[in-house]
């Protein structure tokens, strides 16, 4: 962990909708800039690199891009794409925010679910979308994930889930909090039935998502350098009035403390995922 990686983080990054790939508008072709080393890339070039910069930083990618990169060609079938949220609490500004997020992400909600093959290993899959209100979990995300685990149980499929989230979505209040219990219940039933659940943590995975299905995988892997935690770093700093240790809440820190199984660079993620799925195929699994 290099020092600049710790200090580059804007204090409010989760709350502002996240640090995304910045686009340099001064050139004719919008460039993708690495937020760590500031190298610039032509979009097509960095896409080929799976958004991993030469400096090793794993940039964020959209949920669709991640599915493209994980799933075998044409193997992904989306489920529950038609579900979308309302504004259950008539929370100030939430309708506009939802509309903006739909436009920005071109998705209906903060998670995409479906079935896919990963190197010919069939599975149920969910991928969260950071461009949709920082992948926050409200009633729709909770409903889609619950349905996916129920579907996987019924169809005897393993579940591969990629998390990226600022946590529970505060604009849906207590209903968002309850989604943590709802999804956890579905994961538990699926798990008790023998289902294999692989969690892939990506940057950032925090709050109520960490305190529920992100930490409930049979095997939990993470991309290098991902921020993973329950409380936000700023809140902790204010609470304890101490400087946080270097690399705090990074994937490497979590592995050191025993909370994740393995850190896998994006270039190897598909192979490792398929290998783990193959090791769980057959046997007594559901």
């Amino acid at each position, binding site marked *: 962990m290099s020092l600049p990686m710790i200090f580059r983080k804007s204090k409010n990054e989760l709350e502002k909708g996240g640090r995304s790939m910045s686009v340099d508008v001064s050139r004719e072709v919008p460039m993708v800039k690495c937020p760590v080393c500031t190298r610039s890339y032509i979009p097509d070039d960095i896409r080929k690199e799976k958004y991993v910069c030469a400096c090793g930083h794993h940039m964020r990618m959209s949920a669709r891009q991640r599915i493209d990169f994980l799933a075998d060609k044409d193997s992904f079938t989306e489920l529950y794409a038609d579900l979308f949220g309302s504004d*259950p609490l008539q929370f100030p500004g939430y309708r506009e925010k939802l509309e903006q997020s739909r436009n920005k992400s071109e998705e209906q909600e903060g998670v995409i679910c479906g079935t896919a093959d990963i190197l010919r290993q069939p599975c149920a899959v969910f991928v969260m979308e950071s461009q949709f209100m920082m992948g926050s979990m409200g009633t729709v995300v909770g409903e889609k994930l619950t349905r996916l685990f129920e579907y996987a149980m019924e169809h005897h499929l393993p579940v591969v889930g990629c998390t990226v989230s600022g946590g529970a979505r505060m604009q849906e209040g207590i209903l968002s*909090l309850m989604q943590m219990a709802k999804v956890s219940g579905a994961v538990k039933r699926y798990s008790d039935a023998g289902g294999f659940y692989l969690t892939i943590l990506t940057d950032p995975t925090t709050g109520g998502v960490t305190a529920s299905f992100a930490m409930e995988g049979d095997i939990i892997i993470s991309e290098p350098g991902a921020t993973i935690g329950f409380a936000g770093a700023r809140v902790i700093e204010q*609470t304890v009035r101490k400087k*946080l240790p270097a690399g705090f809440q990074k994937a490497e820190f979590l592995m050191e403390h025993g909370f994740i199984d393995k850190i896998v660079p994006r270039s190897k993620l598909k192979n490792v995922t398929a290998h783990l799925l193959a090791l769980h195929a057959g046997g007594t699994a559901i």
Partner: protein
Amino acid sequence: MKTAYERVKEARSVERPTGQDFITGLFKGFIELHGDRRFSDDTAMLGGLAKWKGQAVTVLTTEKGKDTKERIYRNFGAPNPEGYRKALRLMKQAEKFGRPVICFVDTSGAYCGIGAEERGQGQAIAENLMEMMTLRTPILTILIGEGGSGGALALGVADEVWILENAVYSVISPEGCASILWKDAAKADEAAKSLHLTAEDVKELHVAEKVIPEYDGNFNAILEELRGQIEQWMNKVTSCTIEELLEKRYARFRAIGSEYVKEIVSSQEDDR
């Protein structure tokens, strides 16, 4: 009629009875049991065994403490991971010995600290959510003051959830919500209203089954009310099988929020 934020202040009031008052007021022969058997004993989480009309029960509470000295000792009721692990240990014991579990919740939230993260605050809460959903014994959770986010929910996956009239249950503190959304913690008033965190709101959203009246702060009256309600609840849960109970518990949480999820009706379907 109090505003939402006035209720938040009421819920946080140091004058309010804390978890240990409810335990000693409602149950006989409470014996505290310490420790998570893994790391330490979290003083913000208090638990043990007691008797309810001759029936052994497991009782748990987040505990804020009664005076400044005790509040510091109790970490102001904000548990670390070992607190949730102690709670789960005692709940698993309750399952083994067929004791109902009664949880009281009064916490601003799980503790936000360096050690808490090092020891897996998120993992500890997540594990409780999973395990409580299938714990083979009846669980009742009563929110008596602050119900702060995941730190409260970690004792909240129950067959029924009750909330005291002036208690609150929220995904985030109104101050936190206001400072994140509007960059202004002073708008906590508006945030409290928008979050729908009062007892009535929480019941209306089907997150709680009952609002327990506070009789203008007459604690004995509150205890009397709870005695009657707990009696009824005990009769109800002991008259159904554990499978029925677990099915209902799952369905209870499974249903929360679903009514607000809409489905796009595609134009093709319209044509048909």
